């Protein structure tokens, strides 16, 4: 009788535990979110959009900050897999490390999505990425139209300059391509409008950008058209242009036609103030939504190795449309929430 009672107790306990774990598996989803850093406004806003939305849906989010170390990020993803997470979202450090991390997750049958910074091989994993070429083209197109007006008035050739990002970053390469596509198109259509563009290396580092931009402007003081591959460099550009009397708003004869890409709060403020003419906006809210929806769909359908590329075409916010499209730009939303005052 005693033996029967013990066996019954063990069976009931096991059944209860099994039921609990089944219920937990059906109702609780755990997502591992590994990001390379939060050093720019874009990443801060992306992080906030993803974590708050997921938690709002009752999903547990395990956050890992790799502090710009791809090896650490790989270890963090392995840790997530060992913990049995249902899905992984990463913002990788670069395109190469993303490929390794995706392979690691898929080998363990954990669905994985990559947010905004695409892997060099996009055939595996869910990749949500802005179309950098398209977004850049839209911003530079607006800048080129401003250059055309200036050229028509003054007759002087416009000297373009691009601040290029890290050359191992596919986003940087796409932005460079978009810039040159527009400059080449306008140069062919309007010979004499643009001089040969000057390329300035930044390696996504403000100090490197400062040194090289200062050298470029000293060598070519006639630069009057600057495109930065990321909006976070606007304060650096300012520190170079201001002492030379070139940091002036639209309408001033010394105004440098200026644009960037990202659509951050600083860019929004500078468009408002007239210093910046246009910025290519990555639709951060759309990208975050696409990432989460597709990953959750894969988890619900039991897909362990979903492979898909989802593109955000982006748009250009310029001096001409800021009053209409302001609310669509994540940077303006942050600016209006007082982000730059925090």
């Amino acid at each position, binding site marked *: 009788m005693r033996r029967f009672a013990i066996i019954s107790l063990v069976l009931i306990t096991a059944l209860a535990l099994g039921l609990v774990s089944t219920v937990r598996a059906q109702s609780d989803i755990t997502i591992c979110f590994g990001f390379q*850093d*939060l*050093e*720019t*406004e874009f990443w*801060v806003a992306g992080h906030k959009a993803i974590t708050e939305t997921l938690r709002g849906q009752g999903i547990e989010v395990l956050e890992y*900050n790799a*502090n*710009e170390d791809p090896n650490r990020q790989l270890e963090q993803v392995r840790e997530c897999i060992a913990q049995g997470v249902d899905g992984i979202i990463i913002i990788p450090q670069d395109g190469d490390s993303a490929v390794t991390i995706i392979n690691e997750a898929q080998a363990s049958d954990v669905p994985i999505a990559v947010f905004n910074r695409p892997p060099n091989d996009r055939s595996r994993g869910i990749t949500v990425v802005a179309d950098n070429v398209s977004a850049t083209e839209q911003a530079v197109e607006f800048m080129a139209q401003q250059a055309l007006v200036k050229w028509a008035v003054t007759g002087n050739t416009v000297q373009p300059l691009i601040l*290029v990002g890290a*050359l191992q970053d596919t986003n940087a390469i796409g932005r460079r391509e978009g810039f040159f596509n527009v400059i080449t198109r306008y140069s062919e259509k309007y010979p004499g409008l643009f001089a040969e563009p*000057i*390329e*300035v*290396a930044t390696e*996504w*580092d*403000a*100090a490197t950008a*400062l*040194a*090289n931009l*200062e*050298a*470029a402007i*000293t*060598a*070519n003081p006639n630069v009057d058209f600057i495109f930065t591959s990321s909006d*976070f460099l*606007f*304060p*650096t*550009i*300012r*520190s170079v242009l*201001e*002492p030379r009397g070139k940091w002036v708003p639209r309408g001033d004869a010394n105004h440098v036609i200026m644009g960037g890409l990202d659509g951050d709060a600083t860019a929004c403020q500078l468009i408002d103030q007239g210093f910046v003419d246009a910025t290519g906006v990555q639709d951060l809210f759309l990208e975050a939504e696409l990432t989460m929806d597709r990953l959750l769909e894969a988890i619900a359908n039991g897909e362990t190795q979903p492979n898909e590329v989802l593109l955000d075409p982006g748009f250009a916010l310029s001096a001409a449309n800021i009053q209409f499209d302001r609310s669509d730009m994540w940077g303006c939303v942050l600016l209006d929430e007082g982000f*730059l005052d925090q």
Partner: protein
Amino acid sequence: MPKRRFNLFQFLLNNSTIVLFITVFVLFGLTSPRLVIEGIGLEFPRFWLPENMLNIIKQAAVFAGIIGVGMTFVLLTAGIDLSVGSNMYLSVVCAGLLMRSSGLEIIPALLVSIVVGTLFGAFNALCIVRLKIIPFMTTLATLVIGRGLGTALTESRQIDFPERMNAFGQTLLLGFIPMPIVVFGLVVLAAWFILTRTPFGRQVYAVGNDIEAAKKAGINTDRTLVLVYIISGFCAGLAGFILASQLGGRVDRSFGETREFDAIAAAVLGGTSLFGGVGNVFGTVIGALLIQMVGTGLQFNLVNLYLQPLVRALIIFLAIFFDSLREANLQKLKRRFIRPVESSGTTVPQPARME
């Protein structure tokens, strides 16, 4: 005594860094865009314009110069400080957070940055002198700790300094000398004075030459080591604040990253030995200027972005290579003159010395 003939090769080798410096200066000048002087039709290389020279000195000061001076002290004692970049970041983060939260003015904020940097250096010194952890490992650990602390304080977000920081960065002395150059000049002069005109300076060289011999000579080697790491920390705190003011008052997590390598390269290019006991601050100034001039020259000549790091590394490699060639040659010459040399060039046999 045999008459020594002027040996051009030897002369060039002995002054390899200066020779390379002048070569780079001339070459980039000749190939850079020209400024046409209206009226007389004369062309002048923009690379040689005073404006560009001031830019190069200013950038050399903030990127490698000031921390390079601190690094020279450390290298002279046969030590190394890999944490200066992280120290710059942490120091400026503390100053920036205080400026934002309590409205701290520029000079008190600068002092905060210097104090944090100095304390950081003192912590390195404590680990090296008291805990007997080798400098390489200590500063490698504090490199990670410093950046980690800064990241934790900022939650890895960028810090935007108040507008007055930008104005401070643009300050000109006498209407044309950028503020970082003045600070750099003062730091170099102070370092030169300390190293050449004070007992502490001589102790730094003595510790680097042979620490055991220095101890036997009665030098407090622990005190000397503590002070050099404190000086390095001081320079990092100062350089961090000045650099932040140059960047438009925005500091992100990558601030100061890999600056330690520029500082070490500047000191070594300037003739400071990694094994201690040899070097001076003026050499470091030349090294920092050379590194910066190469970067600026490549931009002036619109060298392909993919090739720029290669060319920069090649020039620095050449400088180090010539320096090692010079060292090897000097060693060879020292060996040759152990015994007197006859005019024919053969050595004179010496009687054996009785001990």
